[in-house]
């Protein structure tokens, strides 16, 4: 309730809150570790799991001799140390200043160093050196013990030391480790754990979630609730496949199909903007009605036209780009750098949107219009124009995201294929705290759970908890998130409030 009195937030209360949170996270991590030891560690000690680290035979992980492995390891550790500590070492002061001044240089150096470290470590851990499919076999119970003890130790340190900043990052890493342990446990025995496949499909699924939540973020940062993302998805999916099919899916037509999908999304964004900004209609009602319209139209057009004109609803997929060098990294390469074009577009869109929102004049205007429109108007910003721009741009992005349903996997349009992902994108937007990078992370998390529940069919016989529970997991996480269990959320102050010029 925006009208209720808020308590005053001082640095002291903030510190108390974060310290409490750190304690809670630490206890959670310890509990997770205990569960890991009891659950995964309790597995039969003879059971092993074979993890697949790549499915692309073109990307051979270079096998090197023992000596070179040691050299690589030392080099990697040295690079990481220099990148992080250069300022404190007197003889490397110039290098330290370089890392301070060039934005992102330190991150790249750490990534290169980590790559050099992980390479020999994975080779020693027994990645299959001769087969084309790189795999690693681990002991299930042993993994459970290692994960559990590590988790408990980290949790105990966190609860004891009360970190302010790093608490949530550690909790999320702990959750990821828990999930990895779960996967290893589920795939125990004869079947291979297709880790790369699951992660790659997770990234593919999170593409349209990313674009959808980015659209929501843009609209809501400007103060307009865009609940019509689902409708824009449908419009984009249908428009893109019809356009691509009509021009037989050549490269040019696929590019234009993406633009066309975006234009359809932007059209519905424009309608939402007109109703919300010119007439001051209730934005949630307009959004719901737009979704109803798009759903009905897509059903009508797909049954009436596309069923009889199959040539308008073909299977045309966007080209898959394998980035040279990067796509050769095991696990990370196939997952992040060997995907269809839309995945790269989505990542680029997130980065550009983050820059545009927080580093440009336009972004400042959008955010100010969403927080305090009257103040923005006082300094001469045209509130309505800025909101129009943001909502239409958001619609364009959501429409392109809709193309991800059809052109992404290269499948024809079927009625109901968006399956409510537009609404999940809204929840992701809230989960990501109305920030593009937050939306990126939340989309990846949701994409992972969605891909997980889709892939668990393989291991159904070994699954103790029902598969439907895994299916419901993202939704339960969302409820927990919006009810503030994972920290406080604060939407843009003028979100959903019609603006009247004074």
């Amino acid at each position: 309730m925006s009208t209720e009195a808020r308590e005053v937030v001082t640095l002291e209360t903030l510190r108390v809150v974060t310290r409490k949170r750190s304690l809670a996270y630490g206890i959670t991590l310890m509990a997770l570790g205990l569960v890991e030891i009891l659950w995964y560690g309790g597995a039969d000690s003879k059971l092993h799991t074979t993890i697949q680290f790549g499915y692309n035979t073109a990307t051979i992980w270079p096998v090197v001799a023992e000596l070179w492995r040691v050299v690589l390891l030392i080099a990697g550790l040295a690079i990481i140390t220099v990148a992080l500590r250069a300022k404190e070492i007197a003889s490397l002061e110039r290098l330290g200043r370089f890392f301070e001044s060039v934005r992102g240089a330190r991150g790249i150096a750490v990534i290169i160093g980590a790559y050099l470290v992980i390479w020999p470590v994975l080779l020693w851990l027994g990645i299959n050196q001769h087969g084309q499919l790189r795999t690693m076999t681990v002991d299930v119970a042993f993994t459970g013990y290692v994960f559990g003890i590590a988790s408990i130790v980290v949790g105990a340190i966190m609860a004891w030391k009360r970190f302010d900043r790093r608490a949530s990052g550690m909790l999320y890493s702990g959750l990821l480790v828990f999930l990895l342990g779960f996967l290893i446990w589920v795939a125990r025995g004869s079947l291979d754990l297709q880790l790369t496949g699951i992660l790659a499909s997770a990234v593919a699924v999170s593409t349209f979630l990313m674009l959808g939540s980015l659209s929501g973020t843009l609209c809501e940062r400007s103060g307009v609730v865009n609940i019509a993302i689902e409708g824009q998805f449908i419009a984009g999916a249908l428009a893109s496949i019809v356009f691509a099919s009509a021009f037989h899916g050549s490269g040019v037509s696929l590019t234009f199909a993406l633009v066309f999908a975006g234009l359809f999304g932007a059209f519905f964004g424009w309608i939402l903007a007109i109703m919300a900004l010119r007439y001051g209609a209730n934005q949630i009602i307009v959004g719901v009605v737009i979704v109803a319209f798009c759903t009905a139209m897509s059903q009508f057009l797909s049954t009436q036209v596309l069923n009889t004109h199959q040539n308008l609803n073909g299977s045309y997929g966007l080209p898959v780009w394998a980035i040279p060098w990067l796509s050769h990294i095991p696990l990370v390469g196939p997952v992040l750098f060997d995907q269809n074009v839309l995945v790269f577009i989505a990542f680029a869109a997130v980065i550009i949107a983050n820059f545009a929102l927080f580093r440009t004049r336009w972004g400042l205007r959008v955010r100010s219009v969403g927080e305090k429109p009257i103040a923005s108007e006082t300094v001469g910003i045209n509130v309505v124009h800025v909101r129009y721009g943001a909502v239409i741009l958001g619609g364009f992005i959501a429409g392109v995201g809709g193309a991800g349903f059809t052109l992404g996997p290269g499948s024809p349009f079927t009625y109901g294929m968006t399956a409510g992902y537009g609404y999940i994108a809204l929840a992701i937007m809230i989960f990501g705290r109305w920030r593009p990078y937050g939306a990126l992370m939340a989309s990846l998390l949701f994409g992972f759970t969605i891909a997980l529940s889709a892939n668990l069919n393989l291991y159904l016989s070994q699954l103790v908890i029902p598969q439907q529970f895994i299916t419901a997991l993202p939704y339960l996480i969302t409820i927990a998130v919006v009810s503030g269990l994972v920290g406080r959320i604060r939407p843009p102050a003028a979100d959903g409030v019609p603006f009247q010029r004074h």
Partner: protein
Amino acid sequence: MSATTTEPATAEPPRLDAFLRFVVRARQANMFLVLVLALFVGLVFGGIMIIVTQPTLLTSWSHFFSHPGGTIASSFNTVWFAYEELFQGAVVNFHSLRLLIDDPSKVTLATALIPLSGTLTYATPLIVAGLGLAIGFRSSLFNIGGQGQVILGGVLALLVGFSFHLTPVLQVPLEMIAAIGGGALLAGFAGVLKAYTGAHEVIVTMMSNYTMIAVLGYLLIQPLFARPGVLDGASKAVGVSGQLPYFFSHLNAALLLNVGFIIALVAVFAVQWFFTRSKTGFELLMVGQNPDAARVAGIYSKRSIIICLALAGGLLGLAGMLELTGVDHFVTPNFGGSYGFDAITVALLGRNKPWGVFFAAIFFGAMFTGGEAMQAFTPTNIQFSLADVIQAVVVFCVATPALLVEVFHLRGGSRLMNSTYAGGWV
């Protein structure tokens, strides 16, 4: 606006002749006019959709300049025929009406009433579900979780339905209590979260939809619910004593109108009473229209949020029970499929008023049954989803009257546009 006493009355309006006066009055925006215009716009849009998607008509339009009359006539014929079938499938079949005039007996009357019965049967759960949504909308709460609440209500009613074998007089109320309790619990949970943590009810109820779909999928493969020997995931059926009795099935087996319609009517009266006569209803209205004033007046907003969502959820659960015990008597994995979202549009179309919701739901039922008839009987095989398109356009026009007011230059339209305040996510 009344003239003040100090100022003389403004100059008399210029005298207009009767026709002009009628035009002026007709352009005064009121809800009835908006409804008629919305229906008109919807039908026109649907007609354009038919013409655009029929290849033969498109070819005839390519000869438009050589045979303008024939082109227009054939297009108009196709559209008219589709709408005729839509009407006949929804309300009454002209052929059976003629038979009735020739032979006025109970049996022919029953045959003539089959489409109407289908409409009302389909509308029954929608009335109750739309009422539930309307309660939420009137206090500015958007309960998108209709589907989940319908599912939970239906599943609990099913549990009661096949577990006991009492008399219908006892068992049907028991099912109702279980269904209402289930729906109220699910929506009330969202209300508690909203009241105490600020979680927005749109997201929570939406997520409860998907959660309930997963739960339903899980339950239907459990031995308690699954029907032995059936692979399509259908559940056990409600016992005969738990089914809602049909009114006229002795006349014609296709007349499926059942006691649920009476329950829905009672619900309409109850909600009407709730909003116009009860203290809690007044408080909810007040919270919805002006939360600040309500808080100043001493209304405890947390309590009213929880009560409002629980009531809405109870009605949606009841809708699930009516759907279950009215026609099919068992649950499938896609039970309650579109009821949650249809109920939203029903409530919007009915402008959140109990009788408005009643007629809106009947309109939806008519479009559904009529749409199926249209698909079955038109030679050009026009798909029933055209009815959904028309519905969506009508709802769009009614929910946001600003568009119609602008397009048709209606006067005084701002009265219709004071739609409720949306608010953000907290």
